[in-house]
């Protein structure tokens, strides 16, 4: 996994509450068996006028001009400002894959849906929860001046607004450690294999029916 330490980037404000995973990446694109290539279909229904198809070239498709990412001033945005309950709905990891593939490194919102929040950390994408007033200030500053950049510092757990206001955020120590170092958490868990085996032995005695092999 690509590590996340400190990131400075253009922020795009998506002023919409309850953005669900079907909006982030519609179902027809979940048919892929790869982890990459979802960026061109990120927010497909909000972004394009027509219905997108998997494996379709997107360059010539009609754009919805009012959608934030279609505005020239937000080209190259790498920090997404969002509203409450971002990422609600399904467990599809294609949602963070699409955000990452598009070029986003961080999403900042007043709240996230649990599964989406968790999935972000597995993909080097940092979800940040800030207070609603702090989010309002970021929206205002980013909208006021074209090219406004935001600084996200995971080590210090701070977000710095374009005007220099600094907001702190909370993050789990373990997730922070993995993200800072780009660690594969399967490898880390396997270091505890003797604890897993010990648990299994104990459990096998208490609940042997859980360990029977499946007849085909």
């Amino acid at each position, binding site marked *: 996994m690509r590590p996340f330490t400190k990131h400075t980037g253009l922020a795009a404000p998506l002023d919409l509450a309850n953005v669900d995973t079907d909006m982030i990446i519609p179902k027809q694109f979940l048919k892929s068996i790869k982890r990459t290539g979802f960026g061109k279909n990120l927010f497909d229904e909000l972004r394009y006028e027509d219905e997108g198809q998997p494996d379709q070239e997107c360059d010539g498709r009609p754009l919805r001009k009012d959608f934030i990412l279609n505005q020239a001033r937000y080209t190259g945005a790498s920090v997404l400002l969002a509203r409450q309950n971002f990422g609600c709905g399904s467990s599809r990891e294609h949602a963070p894959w699409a955000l990452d593939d598009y070029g986003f490194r961080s999403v900042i919102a007043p709240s996230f849906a649990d*599964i989406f929040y968790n*999935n972000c950390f597995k993909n080097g994408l940092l979800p940040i929860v800030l207070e609603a007033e702090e989010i309002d200030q970021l929206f205002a500053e980013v909208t006021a001046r074209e090219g406004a950049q935001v600084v996200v510092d995971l080590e210090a757990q701070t977000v710095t607004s374009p005007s220099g206001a600094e907001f702190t955020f909370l993050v789990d120590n373990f997730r922070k450690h993995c993200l800072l170092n780009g660690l594969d958490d*399967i490898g880390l868990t396997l270091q505890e294999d003797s*604890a897993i085996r010990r648990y*299994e032995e104990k459990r096998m005695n208490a609940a042997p029916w859980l360990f029977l092999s499946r007849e085909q």
Partner: protein
Amino acid sequence: MSAKTLYDKLWDSHLVQQRDDGSALIYIDLQLLHEVTSPQAFEGLRMAGRKPWRISSSLATPDHNVPTTKEERVFGVDGIADPVSKIQVTTLDDNCNEFGITEFNMKDIRQGIVHVVGPEQGATLPGMTVVCGDSHTSTHGAFGALAHGIGTSEVEHVLATQCLVQKKSRNMLVRVDGELSSWVSAKDVVLAIIGAIGTAGGTGYAIEFGGTGIQSLSMEGRMTVCNMAIEAGARVGLIAVDDTTIDYVKGRPYAPKGEHWDMAISAWKDLVSDKDAQFDEVVVLKAEDIKPQVTWGTSPEMVIAIDEAIPRAEDQTDPVKKEGYARAWKYMGLKGKTTLADITLDRVFIGSCTNSRIEDLRIAADVVKGRKVASTLKQAIVVPGSGLVKAQAEKEGLHIIFEAAGLEWREPGCSMCLAMNADKLGAGEHCASTSNRNFEGRQGFGGRTHLVSPAMAAAAAIAGHFVDVNELVKH
């Protein structure tokens, strides 16, 4: 020892390692796999040269992409017209073969929606931890199991380590006291709960559903309630084990037998919250107050009783709600409409992991029996949750009732719930659907979904618009 909730007990019995930072390693007993969220996980295993930790803990079946017409299904995988879908289903078959995982493939009568198949086979058992790369895994909590959806990286993590790194959720109790009115079902109960607490009301919580209104439900009904816990923001929904649970599990193919069965039921009796257990949050609903529910907007919390007026954006005081309602009104094309009966329906879908079990089909058949689908409807389909549900329904003659009324009888799969196969809504079409999500575009680009119970969907199919099923059956 202090009193524990059911969630506390399940957590404690699966704790492998508690870490200093508050995270923990939790052991997973059962992982269900389907074709959409597993290919990248298997690919990850291959690339790292890893093997599954314990093959017998996994069970797979394709469901999201599979076609549901008889003509297509007789050819198995080869009958899938969409080449991209076909690759995904074939990839699941190949991965299960390669890693030795039990799979009910498209030609197996046991194939179906993972959340129908697991319980039906007795693969889902009380006291287990159950995961699947699908948010509706909360369904299995109906058995007093700790079950939740995970992303693909975690699917790979569980395959490789049999564990998940988790942080414990807080405890919420949603109690439904009293007796449900006639034709009010589990679906109406859970929609009313979501209406009361909102789609983010359960975020960060494991919700235990209790009270007489829940205890009186069948296992099918309990699964419907837990299925939609995620629509209230909670990854986990739970219901305590009782005789209804144990009677359902007994004799199922993967259920414990003989001496194991006796051991199991004595262990399962403890799968209830202790009398003095403390919940961080308690919500109480009166069963008598719950009427048949219909969603009018683009989020499951945008739900009202059949006799209520559709709420207007201009009447909302919360600015976020006001904006959300205005957007939903526009998307749903509600201009000039004041009640649910004003909406002309185009399609009806009875199916999905929420409502495709035998009880759901029996109820829907009861409503349409001897009646005809409205001529204004373009299509009404019934999609059973598994091959075995389908066989049982046919044994009872339900398919004849549906077909005589003008509903199509299909083959098992997720179908129009998320329209990854050919079953979908056209732009602007309104659908009465027994599924779980009414998000923009969920059932097809520009499609307009209204979530309802099987009885209400069946009544809507007959009337061509929403109607209280109690009124319909009177005539």
